[in-house]
């Protein structure tokens, strides 16, 4: 049609018709490769779902049959209050220290990884490799290795280091990006004044990224809290360990009680980090502080704080000395108590987790010997019969849950986007659905499903599929809302209806972002599928088995397998993200 209209831009210039319309250029090989990857991934999804025997009908049937088992879970049973408080404090202490550890180690690594602060090519690449490695290995894997190295007596320390290390990948990457985005002017000013590298990094780069450091730390604390539950299954103390014991001894009511506590803790943590964020960053339009600090500020200014007025005279304290620190206004009170609380929390947390120094020093000395036991990796003849099929099952769970998750998450995400939903009310409703799904820890859901459906792949797939709602639909909704509405208006103005507009303008625009999110979700799901091993599924189960039975060679073989899968996925998604833009 279009080529017949003379005004159409793609119409051939020649009017005589003697020159043929130029043939469509052959698609770029990268584009072909990307499509091949997509079709391959989609085929993997469908095959996985088929091979695992997952289809909506059987799922509903089995859910309906299984609901009876839910009665096993009620009434929920809680540990006695003293024990409950102890467990909660242990979990919080481990999560807090792990987050602190990861932030404190991420900052220097990010400084080496960022192009404007690094010391050279070698250190930059080293830092980036460390970050990629830390991202690739799930914290469960770190924990399993460390527990062999440090011994089970230091479970808390192992949890801290494992979560800390695996956070470095994400936090370090984000911080490196932030560092590359800072205003470089102040750094140059300090260089011009004769400041050395570490001086200008401390005085100009770190103050500029401090808000982001805090934000990433708070976000990571949320994630670590969820992960800490899982680590309980490999011997990290706290609520997770209690949950693990309850599951192994099939005390389902206690399982339910602990699950409720974990959910409450997760919600509490979300609220707390939100509150801290607004306290730290919250100022109203006129620059005045909000919340409690605002009140303190006003009281301070009416009482003990005197506003200086002399411009050409140094500020002096009451006893006549030059004033070299700020008065006790809200800002200083906040900083002072902030540091006090932070230090107090560190001391309390370190005291709470009770590191066994004796065992620690002993194990550190036989560190090389323990590490050498991991090599060479050896499946003891079980690889093709047992571990490889388990690995395949794990990957299948990841793929199948992605497929199922897409069916649920994409519509929810679309409905939650203000510019796509039919009415603002609907968008708001689905936003709330997403927030609720996010707050609900995946593992708790998985446990409930395992109780209903038994220890099988369907339970895992369903749990992970629901888990993707929280993340994937949010990302989809956000990128839809960020899409350029002018294109939508243009398409709508040409007479397209709502659905046509959605597919012609909105979907096309957000496709690259959505594809990136889907690949990311696949990555998340396959890692999570490994972690479901703690519930007795797939390769993760063999990992735990090998760990508890001290089979170091098998352990390292399985770890290498998992890392290989994660790295292959990472490479695929890096490639696709580069091509699709």
């Amino acid at each position: 049609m279009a080529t017949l209209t003379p005004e159409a831009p793609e119409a051939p210039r020649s009017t005589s018709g003697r020159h043929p319309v130029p043939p469509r250029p052959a698609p770029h090989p990268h584009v072909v490769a990307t499509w091949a990857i997509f079709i391959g991934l989609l085929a993997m999804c469908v095959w996985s779902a088929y091979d695992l025997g997952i289809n909506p009908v059987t799922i509903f049937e089995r859910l309906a049959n299984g609901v009876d088992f839910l009665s096993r879970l009620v009434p929920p049973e809680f540990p006695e209050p003293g024990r409950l408080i102890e467990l909660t404090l242990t979990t919080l202490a481990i999560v807090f220290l792990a987050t602190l550890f990861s932030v404190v180690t991420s900052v220097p690594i990010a400084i080496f990884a960022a192009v404007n602060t690094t010391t050279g090519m070698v250190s930059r690449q080293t830092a980036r490799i460390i970050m990629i490695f830390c991202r690739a290995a799930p914290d469960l894997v770190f924990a399993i290795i460390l527990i062999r190295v440090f011994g089970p007596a230091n479970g808390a320390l192992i949890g801290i280091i494992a979560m800390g290390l695996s956070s470095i990948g994400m936090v370090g990457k984000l911080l490196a990006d932030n560092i590359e985005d800072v205003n470089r002017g102040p750094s140059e000013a300090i260089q011009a004044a004769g400041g050395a590298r570490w001086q200008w990094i401390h005085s100009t780069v770190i103050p500029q990224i401090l808000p982001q450091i805090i934000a990433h730390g708070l976000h990571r604390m949320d994630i670590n809290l969820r992960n800490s539950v899982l680590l309980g299954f490999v011997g990290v103390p706290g609520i997770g360990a209690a949950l693990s014991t309850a599951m192994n001894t099939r005390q389902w009511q206690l399982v339910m009680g602990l699950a409720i506590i974990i959910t409450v803790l997760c919600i509490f943590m979300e609220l707390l980090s939100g509150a801290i964020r607004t306290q730290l960053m919250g100022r109203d339009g006129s620059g005045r502080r909000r919340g409690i600090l605002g009140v303190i500020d006003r009281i301070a200014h009416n009482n003990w704080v005197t506003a200086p007025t002399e411009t050409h005279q140094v500020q002096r304290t009451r006893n006549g000395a030059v004033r070299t620190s700020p008065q006790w206004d809200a800002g200083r009170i906040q900083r002072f108590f902030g540091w006090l609380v932070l230090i107090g929390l560190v001391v309390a947390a370190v005291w709470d987790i009770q590191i066994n120094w004796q065992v620690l020093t002993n194990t550190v000395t036989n560190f090389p010997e323990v590490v050498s036991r991991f090599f060479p990796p050896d499946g003891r003849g079980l690889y093709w019969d047992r571990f490889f099929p388990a690995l395949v099952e794990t990957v299948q769970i990841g793929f199948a849950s992605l497929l199922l998750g897409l069916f649920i998450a994409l519509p929810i995400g679309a409905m939650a986007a203000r510019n796509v939903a039919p009415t603002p009310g609907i968008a708001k409703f689905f936003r709330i659905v997403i927030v609720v799904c996010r707050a609900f820890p995946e593992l708790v859901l998985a446990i409930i499903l395992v109780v209903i459906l038994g220890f099988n792949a369907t339970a895992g797939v369903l749990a992970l599929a629901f888990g993707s709602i929280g993340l994937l639909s949010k990302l989809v909704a956000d990128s839809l809302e960020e899409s350029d509405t002018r294109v939508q208006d243009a398409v709508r103005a040409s007479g397209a209806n709502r659905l046509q507009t959605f597919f012609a303008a909105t979907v096309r625009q957000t496709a690259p972002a959505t594809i990136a999110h889907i690949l990311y979700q696949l990555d998340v799901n396959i890692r999570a599928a490994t972690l479901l091993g703690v519930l007795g599924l797939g390769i993760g189960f063999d990992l735990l088995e090998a760990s508890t039975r001290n089979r170091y060679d098998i352990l390292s073989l399985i770890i290498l397998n998992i890392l290989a899968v994660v790295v292959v996925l990472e490479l695929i998604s890096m490639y696709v993200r580069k091509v699709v833009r």
Partner: protein
Amino acid sequence: MAQSMMATDASFTSSEERSIQLRNVTKQFGEVTALNDINIDFAPQKINVLLGLSGSGKSTLLRHINGLHKPTSGEVVTLGTEVHRAGARKLRMLRREVGMIFQHFHLVESMSVLENVCTGKLGSLGGPRLGLFMYPKEVKEQAMEQLARVGLADKAFNRADALSGGQMQRVAIARALIQEPKVLLADEPVAALDPVSSATVMNLIGKIAKEDNLTVVCSLHQVELALEFSDRIIGLRGGELVMDRDASTLSLKEAHEIYSAVAVVTDEEIEQQVPELAGITTEQQS
């Protein structure tokens, strides 16, 4: 020619006479020649203004003086230090004595004004500092005194981003002054300011230069300001030195004439910098 050779020799022997010397300085950024064979001396305790269009090489010249740029060829000697061959440590030693202020102030906005001033002293303090409390008391007192000098003592504990542009530039001046410099480099210090703040900041620079016997090298866009505040006016164009006059011998009218001669843009130059624009001007002219 022979005279200038002699001057060169003399200048290298008596560095007290000339605080800054540039000899045959050429700077190349890839294809672009930012400075082309520049020879210039700056006498101590004088205010020198660099005039020139955008891209004429003012910033590049200033940055050679404290070694933020190294010349592609040629020699730069500042306060007796051979900048063109100085290593990192030697450069840091030199930079302690050379203050610098910038068009966009380059303050850390989330930091307090006093701490921003203290960072100027980092060059002579060992080790990194995280927060005001890590600076020695004397440094903080000095910082407060410098703030009083620039008339911002009342703002010492405000965040830097709560200040106006003119105030920020005065903080930047205080940050340079706490170094107790012998040379002050200013790269378009008032280009981002309104006329009133511009006058305040330039007055301040002039007053402090007299009080502290500073050698000032300052790039500017405005001829009036240049005439009012400088002892010597230097015109740059396309990386070359095209004017060098004692300011007291220059009338405003004369200066404008010279400057517009310096500042008139040829089509060739426009084509070099913004090819899309070249056609437009010729069309308008025809």
